[in-house]
């Protein structure tokens, strides 16, 4: 049964931490949203509460990392990525402190709570900071396996997790690697490139397009930075059109990064699917995906429009 990735993350972390005293979970009155209550109860000596103080959350985590701990600073992605961004830049990245920044309930997970609680700029700001690896797992299996890899990963990481149950993408043979994209569906007419919890919608769209007679490749990325440029450039070369899909502003995230890559290495028609540069309408996550055309049906429409452009564009 599909469960929220944040829940899978904390269960995995608790299992790991029981055998590794270096692991510390830090929360900013976020143990509920991060589902860290069990961790706090079972391993109080490896749990740190800082209260509603995200700057101190990240600064303290950096200090603990510098003393040999493996800190996981867990806070809603919207606050972690904005309120403490200078501590992330200076205390964590620039100082070389191996902090794992866990952005809980990222993107529009909080839905109708509104823009204060959405994190649609986090990828933009994180990927502009030298040295930070930016990770977005798609489903439960990927979340659990990447969490395990984070313990001894050399360098700071921002990992964004969603709030709702994440639909399954991968089978039991899948072995994710940080920085490595996955070919989910073969195709020749175009490629959908998706990240995080929109990978499932992208894959569904790929199947729908196939039914409509369009050979659509689907590529999943669990890491925005470093970017798997090889899988992207191969897709661009072989399919000639890319549709990027992200739960993020259309500025500064996956689409922007891919546009930069294509500008450097040879352009093909590109559509960037994400949230527009305006305040969002009210709605839950599912409603917002549908409204902004990020559900499978919306992606199918964008894919068809992209194919029309591919056929008429001369680059």
């Amino acid at each position: 049964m599909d469960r929220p990735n944040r829940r899978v993350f904390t269960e995995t972390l608790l299992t790991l931490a029981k055998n590794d005293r270096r692991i510390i979970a830090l929360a900013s009155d976020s143990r509920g949203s991060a589902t860290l209550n069990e961790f706090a109860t079972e391993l109080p000596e490896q749990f740190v509460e800082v209260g509603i103080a995200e700057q101190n959350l990240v600064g303290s985590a950096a200090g603990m990392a510098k003393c040999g701990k493996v800190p996981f600073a867990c806070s809603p992605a919207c606050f972690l990525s904005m309120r403490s961004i200078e501590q992330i830049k200076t205390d964590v990245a620039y100082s070389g402190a191996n902090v794992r920044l866990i952005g809980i309930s990222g993107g529009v997970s909080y839905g109708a709570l509104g823009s204060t609680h959405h994190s649609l700029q986090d990828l933009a700001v994180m990927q502009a900071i030298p040295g930070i690896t930016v990770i977005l797992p798609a489903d439960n299996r990927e979340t659990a396996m990447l969490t395990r890899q984070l313990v001894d990963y050399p360098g700071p990481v921002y990992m964004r997790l969603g709030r709702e149950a994440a639909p399954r993408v991968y089978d039991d043979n899948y072995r994710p690697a940080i920085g490595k994209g996955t070919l989910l569906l073969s195709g020749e007419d175009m490629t959908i490139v998706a990240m995080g919890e929109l990978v499932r919608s992208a894959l569904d769209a790929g199947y729908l397009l196939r039914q409509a007679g369009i050979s659509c490749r689907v590529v999943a990325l669990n890491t925005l930075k470093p970017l798997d440029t090889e899988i992207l450039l191969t897709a661009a070369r072989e399919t000639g059109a890319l549709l990027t899909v992200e739960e993020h502003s259309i500025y500064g995230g996956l689409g922007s990064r891919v546009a930069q890559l294509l500008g450097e290495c040879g352009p093909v028609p590109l559509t960037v699917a994400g949230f527009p540069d305006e305040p969002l309408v009210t709605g839950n996550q599912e409603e917002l995906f549908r409204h902004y055309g990020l559900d499978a049906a919306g992606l199918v429409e964008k894919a068809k429009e992209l194919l029309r452009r591919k056929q008429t564009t001369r680059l």
Partner: protein
Amino acid sequence: MTLTELAQKALETRREVLRLIYRAGAGHIGGALSAVDLLVVLFYDVLNYRPEEPAWPMRDRFILSKGHSCEGYYVILADRGFFPREELASFMKYQSRLMGHPHPKVPGVEVATGSLGHGLSVATGMALAGKRDQLPYRVYCLLGDGELAEGSIWEAAIAAAHYGLDNLVCLIDCNGLQISGPTQQVMNTQPLAAKWEAFGWEVREIDGHDLQQIRQNLNQVPFTVGRPSLVIARTVKGKGISFMENDFHWHHKVPSREEYERAMKELEGVGPSEIGA
């Protein structure tokens, strides 16, 4: 080290700070000079560390939260053997490790500072890690009084008291001036002692240029078991150079050749021939 020897180190450090800034044509001289005596006592008398093994796990940690006052810090780290003294001549030069704000690529520097209000959180995390591992090291953090307007300082102050971090010692280089003028006019953070006491810290107020007072108080930490210790050190911005003292324009002004020579003479017995600019 005797008080006389400490005083000699303080004087030498001030001379070297002046030389560094004059040669580089940049730096923050006022706050560097106000912090010298605190740094000298810390690094020559209080802190437990191994220059040949900067990452020694049992070392006391020091964080210069007011990272712009790095000149005296660099001079002392070099003198203590963390890196060659000759490297000081590269201060703020192309490709030097010695930037205008400290970075851990300089041996002895724990974390990068320079954006104000960050140091105490990092120090709190270090002290908390030490407590959790039951290690005997202490963590010392030097703040400026101007940076107390940063809210993050107070987030850390609350947490340090909440966790009873009596292995954490915070010092405030309270020179009363910041880049735009007197701190009390720019943003009044007084009464400092009452504020920090209310936040759960044990507070001592001292003369930040009286080496004996500094040493005596730092040797008595923790001031109360179970509480973090705070030293409010009353200092003089530009201390040691008469025409710089208590003048906020010297926050980051660079002395002219004439000013440099006058200042060097004030810092005892250095003739123009020794001015290696």
